[in-house]
């Protein structure tokens, strides 16, 4: 701490703080125009100048560090006159009519405060209205260059450029002319920071300044960014990043920032419906709920509780997921309860759980800043987890070594020190070869291996078959690159590893995770800052949903039956045995053993591989109750009762992000039409299933408090403790515990030692041949999200297509396919159509299908392959052929 005098009053300020920070902390409001706390000081607008005793000239508060004994004067007459003079300089060229139209922008408030009239002209040529989310009126630009700096420093892009000099200097979106035609990723940061509205959200331009701001958590990916939701009495207007959020630090991606249009989409279903005579009919809530309960009770009666399957929603809150599994187990007596983690990170949870004892990320996103190296495996975070991706990108741009393992040349791969491009489905040989090099060159962490692991000898023996040369041949990777990556990872510690679905959605998904855990164990990259194995979870609450017990073989907290069944039964009464997972449920449905399903917010038909088999199985059900916002492909084809759900903007509760962080979700507006939260619906169903007395909750907090009783790791996570930014990371066993950002510091939940296990490689059944010469990989894009349910109902569709097949130009040439031409992709299992996007991001022979579109329906072509341990389907490797569509 240093002591300084602010206008004569002694105050303390932390060392290294800027004068501006100190002034603001003590309520002294010095005007600023070029300053934004998210960026380096620019020292350019000079409004923040203050007088410091002993200094010949005034100093910029934003760029001056505090020093012991400094005596600062902030609002003397001369300074205020000077500030007014600066505003006058800007007002000369500022359009006169604008400030009154839009008085809330900071610059307009300054004009008013200093009583300076704007006297410049407004010309139509400076307007750019092409972008769906951002309206540009460069008449309003005061050349503060905040947009330039935030785009570069925070978003890691350089879209805005200063062009010209002197009074002609101005900003332009690159060379493109229009922002829409630039490589802008629509993160909205420039609009966020612009002090005049020269760049502003269309929503804000159209609907005015929001009246209320509600802090909540993003409903897209598992990063868990905190938002401020701006609303008027009954309208969502705008979303802004929470400035003090530890996860996203005042930044968002296009989905979180702008993807709110789905909430008021025209086709949102807001009244309960029942299918009668094949047609959907709107009914009252009572009718619909009665019908749903009747279906479930009838099937239970006739075929037993195991004939019912329940799917929780990864979009819902923890509280809702918890009640979903409780309803399944207590209300229906079935252990058949699962969620969409099955088709994404179930292998991560299983692999980490098996090896270390906790099926969740070992470290936190903050560790990226502490790492000496980052290794990204089968993940494309700059598109799918943009805020995490950015952190990695910023480090890499500053020179941190980066290893990327991915068949595609992703944005991070372009920055990588080593980029290994294995053929889809050959992870195991590659990971084992990395370990082979580390062990055989003696680069492993001997003390760590000796003190904290066991099974090394057997593991060592199992590695020997994968010398780099042999793995190189199998994986299509250069052996020297394998050595280079292995040496780099082993010798540049601490090393942070994160993985995505490129590892898990394989027939060797769980083994892939195990192999990665082994690499971390070998190199001592566990239990310390900047290290770990960290799955990047897909949906906002997929971690939470599985963790809450929507898992057929686990109970609350992803805890094994044998360890916690007694605790559960003491509270809930006798429980059914473990049940079927999603894939097993589909098998059972196909065989007539499963007869009814209750599905919360999950388009399983569209998103499960091998769609034809899914359809055949679901068609045999007696009925299916769907709780959702939209008539999903599943509901359309198989639903018999539809219960309209409230969106995340319309309800209360908590989400859990991919780093075990529990954060509060808050309602910004009332549920649309007759929609109700899943939680309400669950309570109503419980009543009708005759277990109402077991479901006596008055609030989401009540529900959460029951979770705390059943799972000690969150016992300390009380709602009132979640009021501060970032909530709490579990384990947090009591209310004084600060939460845990790094797991396994001294021991593992499995014991003092983690076990190495030999891994055998079982290749995929999908092989290319003359008839099916391409290996199809699938995944996501930046602008869209998973099944597309939300994003295809937003203006994101104006930014990019949702049905895209990335195709190498050489393949395209051989096929005679042009860019943006529609093609048919056909496998042994089915076919889909998509628009070809020619790019050398993918290698010849390895096209990549973007799966967001219900129209394209990529999963029709996916096969039956599954990870034997978790049954996660093989989305990442299918042998296909590609045909031009016949021209009409």
């Amino acid at each position: 701490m240093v002591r300084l005098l602010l206008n004569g009053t002694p105050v303390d300020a932390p060392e290294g703080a800027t004068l501006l920070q100190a002034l603001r902390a003590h309520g002294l409001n010095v005007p600023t125009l070029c300053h934004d706390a998210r960026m380096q000081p620019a020292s350019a607008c000079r409004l923040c100048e203050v007088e410091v005793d002993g200094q010949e000239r005034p100093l910029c508060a934003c760029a001056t560090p505090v020093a012991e004994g400094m005596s600062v004067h902030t609002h003397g007459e001369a300074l205020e006159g000077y500030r007014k003079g600066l505003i006058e300089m800007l007002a000369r060229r500022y359009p006169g009519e604008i400030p009154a139209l839009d008085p809330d922008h900071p610059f307009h408030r300054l004009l008013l405060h200093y009583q300076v009239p704007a006297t410049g002209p407004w010309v139509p040529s400076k307007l750019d209205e092409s972008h769906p989310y951002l309206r540009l009126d460069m008449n309003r630009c005061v050349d503060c260059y905040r947009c330039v700096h935030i785009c570069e420093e925070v978003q890691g892009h350089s879209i805005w450029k200063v062009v010209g000099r002197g009074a002609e200097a101005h900003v332009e979106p690159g060379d493109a002319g229009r922002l829409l035609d630039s490589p802008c990723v629509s993160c909205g940061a420039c609009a966020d920071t612009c002090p005049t509205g020269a760049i502003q959200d269309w929503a804000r331009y159209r609907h005015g300044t929001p009246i209320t701001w509600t802090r909540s958590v993003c409903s897209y990916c598992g990063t868990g960014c905190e938002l401020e939701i701006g609303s008027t009495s009954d309208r969502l207007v705008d979303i802004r990043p929470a400035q003090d959020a530890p996860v996203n630090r005042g930044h968002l991606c296009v989905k979180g920032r702008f993807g709110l249009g789905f909430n008021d989409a025209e086709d949102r279903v807001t009244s309960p419906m029942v299918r009668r005579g094949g047609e959907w009919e709107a009914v009252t809530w009572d009718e619909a709920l009665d019908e749903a309960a009747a279906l479930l009770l009838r099937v239970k009666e006739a075929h037993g509780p195991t004939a019912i399957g329940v799917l929780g929603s990864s979009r819902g809150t923890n509280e809702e997921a918890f009640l979903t599994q409780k309803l399944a187990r207590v209300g229906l007596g079935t252990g058949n309860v699962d969620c969409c983690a099955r088709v994404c990170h179930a292998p991560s949870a299983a692999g980490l759980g098996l090896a270390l004892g906790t099926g969740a990320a070992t470290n936190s996103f903050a560790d990226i800043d502490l790492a000496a190296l980052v290794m990204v495996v089968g993940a494309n975070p700059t598109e799918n987890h943009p805020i995490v991706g950015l952190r990695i990108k910023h480090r890499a741009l500053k020179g941190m070594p980066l290893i990327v393992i991915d068949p595609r040349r992703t944005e991070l791969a372009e920055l990588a020190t080593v980029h290994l491009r294995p053929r889809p489905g050959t992870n195991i040989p590659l990971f084992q070869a990395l370990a082979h090099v580390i062990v055989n060159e003696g680069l492993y962490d001997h003390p760590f291996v000796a003190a904290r692991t066991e099974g090394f000898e057997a593991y060592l023996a199992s590695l020997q078959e994968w010398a780099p040369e042999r793995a190189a041949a199998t994986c299509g990777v250069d052996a020297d690159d394998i050595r280079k990556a292995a040496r780099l990872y082993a010798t540049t510690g601490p090393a942070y590893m994160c993985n995505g679905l490129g590892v898990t959605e394989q027939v060797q998904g769980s083994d892939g995770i195990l192999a990665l855990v082994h690499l971390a164990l070998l190199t001592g990259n566990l239990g310390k800052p900047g290290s770990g194995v960290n799955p990047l979870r897909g949906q906002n609450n997929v971690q939470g949903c599985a963790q809450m017990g929507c898992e057929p073989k686990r109970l609350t907290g992803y805890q094994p039956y044998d360890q916690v069944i007694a605790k559960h039964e003491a509270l809930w009464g006798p429980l059914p045995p473990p049940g079927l997972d999603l894939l097993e449920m589909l098998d059972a449905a196909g065989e007539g053993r499963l007869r009814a399903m209750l599905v919360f917010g999950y388009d399983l038909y569209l998103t499960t591989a091998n769609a034809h088999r899914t359809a055949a199985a679901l068609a045999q059900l007696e009925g299916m109750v769907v709780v959702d916002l939209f008539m999903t492909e599943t509901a359309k084809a198989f639903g018999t009762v539809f219960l309209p759900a409230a969106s995340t903007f319309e309800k209360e509760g908590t989400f859990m992000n991919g780093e075990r962080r529990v954060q509060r979700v808050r309602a910004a507006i009332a549920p649309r039409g007759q929609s109700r939260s899943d939680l309400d619906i669950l309570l109503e169903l419980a009543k009708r299933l005759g277990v109402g007395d077991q479901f006596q909750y008055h609030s989401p907090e009540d529900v959460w408090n029951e979770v705390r009783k059943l799972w000690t790791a969150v016992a300390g996570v009380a709602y009132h403790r979640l009021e501060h930014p970032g909530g709490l990371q579990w384990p947090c066993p009591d209310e004084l515990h600060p939460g845990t950002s790094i797991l396994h510091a001294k021991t593992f939940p499995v014991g003092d030692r983690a076990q190495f296990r030999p891994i055998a490689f079982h290749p995929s059944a999908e092989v290319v041949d003359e008839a099916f010469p391409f290996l199809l990989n699938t995944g996501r894009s930046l602008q869209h999200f998973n099944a597309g349910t939300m994003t295809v109902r937003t203006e994101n569709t104006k930014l990019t297509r949702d049905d895209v097949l990335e195709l190498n130009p050489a393949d395209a040439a051989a096929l005679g396919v042009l860019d943006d031409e529609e093609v048919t992709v056909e496998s042994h299992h089915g076919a889909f159509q998509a628009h070809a996007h020619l790019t050398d991001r993918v290698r010849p022979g390895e096209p990549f299908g973007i799966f967001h579109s219900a129209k394209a329906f990529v999963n029709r072509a996916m096969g039956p392959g599954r990870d034997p341990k978790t049954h996660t389907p093989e989305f990442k490797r299918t042998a296909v052929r590609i045909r031009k569509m016949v021209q009409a």
Partner: protein
Amino acid sequence: MAIRTKHDPQSYTFAGFGSEKYPNLMLRGAGDLNNWTLDVYEQKHEGYVAMKQALKMEPVAVTEEVKTSGIRGRGGAGFPAGLKWSFMPKDTPERKITRYLVINGDEGEPGTFKDRAILEYNPHQLIEGCIIASYAMQANTCYVYIRGEFLWLIEKLELAIEQARAKGYLGKNILGSGFDLDIIVHRGAGAYICGEETALLNSLEGRRGEPRVKPPFPAAKGAFGQPTTINNVETIAAVPPIIRMGGAEYAKLGTTKNSGTRIFCISGHVKRPGLYELPLGLPLDFILNELAGGSSTGKKIKAVIPGGASAPVFSEAEFSTPMDFDSVRNAGSMAGSGGVIVLDEDTCMVQACLRLIRFYAHESCGQCTPCREGCNWMEMILHRIEHGEGTLEDLDVLASLTPRIAGRTLCALGDAACGPMESMLKKFRHEFEHHVTHKTCYVKGHELLAKVGAH
């Protein structure tokens, strides 16, 4: 190579130049277009003697020698060079540091043309200076940033560098000393602001040439984020003579705290414009009248800009000022880059002022509000006055603008613009007033009409 074959007409010498009184340290052979080669430099001008001497010294001892010489930077700010070098962080057992030396050859200051002569006639003296300075600071890469218009000089310097490399004066293990150095020449792209040292660094890195916020200063975080020293071409070219004669001997030239010789660039209304290498501290009127031959028009000299366009103008009262950093500062101006611009009685100060302000308004990088908006505002007002459309209020606004700009911008360009503006308005206010009230030019008497286009 586009080496010039035509002799340029300006003067590089005067009676007595090269004598003990007026030693020729910087312009040896200037005017002779064959002077630039390594052979000539070694055979005729004691070339690379200082380098060989320096490489046998401890690096810190070299810096000490430069400190002792007292030489102050010739680029504009007049900062002691030896002191600047000593700010460069040294290696520690834990950390080996990459350091850079960057030579500022942007020479953008109006009225300044000395670095150009060094590059034209004595490029090896600069190269030798670079080697010695880099050795003193233990920098292994030296960038020379040269004004884009000097294309032929860039090519010439590159040839000279090749000659030096061929002789083993550059590259790995120079003359067995264990010291490695490469010199990389970088061409500017025509922006005055890129002469400002941190804008220069941005430009060198391939970014937009705009000044950076200081601190961090270049010695802490300069080119590519590494500790960097930036020196003017003339400053570095003075290093070989300093080492050859010894710092103490050099310090005897000039006056205390203002030692050595520097190259004055004299232009405007004098009989013999050109480059004059002189010991610091000679009176301005002596230089103009005795050496440069006095007024070329027969009219009285009315005003002199003593240190490049950015320096506040001198009127007759200050003509006896000794031309060294401190005396010029005490007289209310700055010695700056050594550009001396002489204006006779027939020069309209309003017009001169407009010309200068237009330059600064155009060359402002546009980052800071006061500089971008203020210079533009001044230019617009001056334009009005020059065209007979000014008011007396305009003069007050002009006077009120300079304190809003000077000292309140990120880099010194704001100050630079205010130097001429403030001093001209103060010292020649009657000319401005006359323009406003009479709508005629005070000096030439003609009418000021926008449609005639004036002057």
